[in-house]
């Protein structure tokens, strides 16, 4: 066009630098195109349960791999080219030299992921979301309550707190699954059982041969455990029904909504707060979440 003699400096970003987010936007612009996935290669696949696989991935760009960092509780978009992207919690340790996601075979993308083998290529956009405020929790007891694949969302956080045990007054884990073979990260569970610095309670839905631990639904076991709400942070993740009833139990036990955290899952597309799909009222799960306190959720419309 006539006025565009120079192709440069057309953005009004600087002149309209009034909104608080401008800096972020500028940073985003420098960071490049947030829609473009980084290509990564599957380096290892662990079959966790009959329908859950854990994928260990390494970015093809070594610099990206080196620079990659995230906070416990953050998520990423893992995609198969030609099928699509889906959101998964990052389950590796921040110190790992790979990125790890645990995927339950459920829909199109997860099915395609399950069909991949070591050496295959995927696309990753990560990290996204806020993560758990592990810094704020220092000096408190942490109680993880999780069910089924919900453990994937908390795995990185558990690993983090275990790596920084001195910062916390104690770690308790209540983990429920439908049957003994459905515990994801069986190897972790075995290890936690051996350790005496973790208070681990396992439960399954229905009695079965050879089972030594609790039997019953998570909320019921939670009430039986009767944890002391004082100086404790409760972190909850699992199927919606479990969350709903565990929350009732937590309230019964005297936990306030402010000390109860959960992490949400929603259908997401862009992952950067634009596409308008994962919102619960004014909050976007992809950027304002996925971690919320129950007090924050209480403010939002009932669209979980």
């Amino acid at each position, binding site marked *: 066009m006539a006025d565009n003699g120079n192709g440069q400096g057309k953005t009004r970003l600087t002149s309209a630098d009034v909104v608080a987010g401008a800096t972020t936007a500028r940073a985003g612009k420098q960071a490049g195109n947030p829609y473009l996935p980084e290509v990564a290669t599957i380096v290892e696949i662990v079959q966790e349960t009959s329908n859950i696989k854990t994928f260990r991935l390494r970015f093809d760009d070594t610099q990206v791999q080196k620079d990659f960092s995230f906070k416990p509780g953050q998520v990423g978009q893992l995609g*198969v*080219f*030609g*099928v699509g992207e889906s959101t998964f919690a990052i389950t590796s340790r921040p110190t790992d030299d790979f990125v790890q996601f645990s995927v339950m075979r459920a829909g199109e993308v997860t099915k*395609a992921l399950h*069909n*991949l083998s070591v050496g*295959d290529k995927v696309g990753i956009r990560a990290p996204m979301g806020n993560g758990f405020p592990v810094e704020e929790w220092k000096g408190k007891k942490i109680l993880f309550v999780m069910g089924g694949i919900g453990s994937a969302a908390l795995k990185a956080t558990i690993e983090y707190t275990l790596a920084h045990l001195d910062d916390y007054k104690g770690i308790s884990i209540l983990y429920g699954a439908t049957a003994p073979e459905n515990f994801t990260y069986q190897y972790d569970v075995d290890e936690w059982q051996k350790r005496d610095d973790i208070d681990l309670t396992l439960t399954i839905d229905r009695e079965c041969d050879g089972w030594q631990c609790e039997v019953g639904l998570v909320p019921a076991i939670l009430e039986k455990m009767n944890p002391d709400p004082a100086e404790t942070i409760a972190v909850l993740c699992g199927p919606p029904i479990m969350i709903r009833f565990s929350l009732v139990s937590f309230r019964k036990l005297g936990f306030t909504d402010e000390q109860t955290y959960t992490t949400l899952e929603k259908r997401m597309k862009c992952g950067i707060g634009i596409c308008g799909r994962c919102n619960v009222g004014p909050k976007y799960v992809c950027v304002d979440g996925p971690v919320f306190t129950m007090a924050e959720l209480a403010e939002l419309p009932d669209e979980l």
Partner: protein
Amino acid sequence: MAEETRDQGAENATATTEAGTAGATGEATGSPDTRRVKIIGIVCNWCSYAGADTAGVGRFKQPANLRLVRVPCTGRIDPLFALKAFEKGADGVLISGCHPGDCHYSEGNYYARRKFELMERMIHHLGIPQERFKWTWVSASEGARWQQVVTDFVAGVESLGPRQGRAL
């Protein structure tokens, strides 16, 4: 929609490599040669699929452009299947099942033939010449008929050439 694909493009129709659903890793086989027409055959498990096998066992020579999608019964075939195949770049779609009266499930093909007839009458409105779409009956024993049907249909589509562009 593709429960199973079978690539007949190898040496002859006896090739029974099950390519599985063409997923993220792309199709396991298939020539990159775009000059050859690609034809999707949607066939019922009990008659035409077996008929194709018979043709193979009988070593009837036939064109190798056809890829089969096996469905339980022609009654299962939604017109969408054919349209989707065209959308994905097929140059022709062949649908085949049991002869009327021979349906493994008694009556599936009676429903099917009504649908296909309408489909055939309407397909040219999509800009797809009727010659690119065919539906017929081939029973399990009719290996020769299968050969004939496929040869004729492929020749017809070949005379029209590959369709331009990928979408419809």
